């Protein structure tokens, strides 16, 4: 489950990374902006799931349990063991 949420987060976030740079140099492309917003909504959902079911994804995300799970997440090391 953890792997599945992370994979989806990576896909949606990457789509936004790509669109962000594209819109930076094409600020009048409303189609791209609409797509960016569509992915942003999807990402928000996934982020909420990650925060509740696994651990806070970002440093400003609330700890949704009474444990400090922030330091248990080393997803930056890659892989899932």
């Amino acid at each position, binding site marked *: 489950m953890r792997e599945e949420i*992370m*994979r989806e*987060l*990576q896909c949606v*976030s*990457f789509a936004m*990374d*790509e669109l*962000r*740079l*594209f819109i*930076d*140099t*094409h*600020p009048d492309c409303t189609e791209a902006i609409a797509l960016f917003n569509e992915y942003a909504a999807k990402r928000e959902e996934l982020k909420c799931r990650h925060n509740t079911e696994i*651990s806070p*994804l*970002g*440093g*400003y995300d609330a700890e949704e349990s009474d444990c400090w799970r922030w330091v248990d*997440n*080393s*997803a*930056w*090391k*890659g*892989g*899932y063991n």
Partner: protein
Amino acid sequence: MWEYEKRLQFPVNIKTPDARAAKVICSQYGGPDGELGASLRYFSQSYAMSNNKVANLLRDIATEELAHLEMVGTIVMQLTKNLTIDQIEREGFDTYFVDHTVGVYPQAAAGVPYTAAFMQSKGDPITDLFEDMAAEQKARTTYDNILKLVDNPDVIEPIKFLRQREVVHFQRFGEALAMLRDDLDSQNFYYYNPSFKNGCR
């Protein structure tokens, strides 16, 4: 200010250590055309960038480069995990090992430590953007060379991703250069430095 997210931009999951590959890939961590230099270059240049949209693009790309630095560090870490002393010697990793054990250190493949002399922040927007486009191409060539030297699909996939990002950034910087030229005297783009107008006419 940054908000850090605990995830990689693209998955890295290498199951077999390979010291030889680690030794060449570490160049994209702290080598002449590596991700550290890229991030620091665009971030530093953004301060003197006269066109506000381009300055913001520099920040966005600098941020993505930090995520690439994280990926390259992860690749090096996974490639050097559980190596035996025998493998370290046989695969030519001993010269790195003696100074850094299997810690991740910013250096070029041949051992030159990261230095800001690898990059420039010239304070002239056109000059800086040309440097940036060249930097993306140099990094792309380095990834092409890495792809000639590695054969493990677990390593090839994230390296191919990073190579592709160099191509996209090159394209975006090219568009940024066109935006910048629109702000300037089309008869002579170098008539003055838009970031240092006083005394330059």
